[in-house]
């Protein structure tokens, strides 16, 4: 039987997860859009899962918080978003890095100051992480392919994320010159 404290921690964790997934959702759609690929959010099980998947994994860690982000996609969205005709595995790593960067910059405004690991790329069929929680990925469809996003984010007891409690960050495409 769970104690009241344990129940409130689960609720708290669920709220944090929901918040971070919302941030990840916005970041993922914005990232692909920036590279000319429109994604449509779909229920996870309706997205294709039989193509070869490329996956980029990035870890988050900060004071009393940690998490991970797995960006997986079929070849089509990776190839279409690639600004040059270069190796797809390298581009998956960079996309994962830019996705995590967008999330980090947004999380800063909630008072979460996290450090990003460098990305690790995997390639294979039917890849899926084994998260601490039972969860389905965020899923997106586009003609001829799919994108999947697993997000996990945990705070220690007593930590919380509040809008406006942190600092604003520079946004994607911003150019600051110091003269």
């Amino acid at each position, binding site marked *: 039987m769970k104690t009241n404290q344990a129940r409130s921690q689960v609720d708290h964790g669920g709220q944090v997860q929901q918040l971070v997934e919302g941030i990840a959702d916005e970041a993922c759609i914005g990232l692909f859009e*920036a*590279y000319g690929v429109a994604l449509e959010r779909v229920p996870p099980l309706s997205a294709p899962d039989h193509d070869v998947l490329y996956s980029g994994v990035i870890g988050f860690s900060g004071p009393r918080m940690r998490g991970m982000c797995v960006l997986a996609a079929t070849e089509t969205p990776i190839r279409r978003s*690639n*600004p*040059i005709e*270069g*190796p797809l595995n*390298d*581009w998956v*790593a*960079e996309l994962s*890095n*830019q996705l*995590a*960067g*967008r999330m*980090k*910059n947004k999380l*800063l405004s909630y008072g979460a*100051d996290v450090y*990003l690991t*460098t990305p690790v790329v995997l390639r294979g069929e039917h890849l899926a992480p084994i998260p601490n929680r039972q969860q389905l990925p965020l899923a997106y469809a586009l003609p001829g392919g799919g994108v999947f996003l697993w997000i996990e984010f945990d705070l220690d007891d007593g930590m919380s994320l509040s809008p406006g409690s942190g*600092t*604003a*960050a*520079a*946004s*994607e*495409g*911003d*150019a*600051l*010159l*110091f*003269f």
Partner: protein
Amino acid sequence: MKKVLVVDDSATVRQQVGLALKQGGFEMIEATDGLDGAAKIGSLPDIGMVILDVNMPGMNGIEMLEKVKQIEANASLPVIMLTTEGQHSLIERAKKAGAKGWIVKPFKPELLVAAVRKLILA
């Protein structure tokens, strides 16, 4: 003309930046991380500017910037950070170390080339 050193662990980004620089009339030298970048600045005299990522394995871009700028000969070498990071404390740290600019990815090629032109010809 002096060349632009592009330090990024992503070959795609190096190639993308290289293409933009070529279209702007500049030549590029590549480095894959901070250690490689610092070594090339120390050994190649024709580097006139640096475009530098932050999150890289080994030595990251901020560490490389601080290391390179400790050497007097590099004091006037212009450096632009090109990164996914937008955290103001990092931007301030780079500025204090001597960076001349900070661009958050994804970048607009024409904006990057305009900044390079302004700094390398200054």
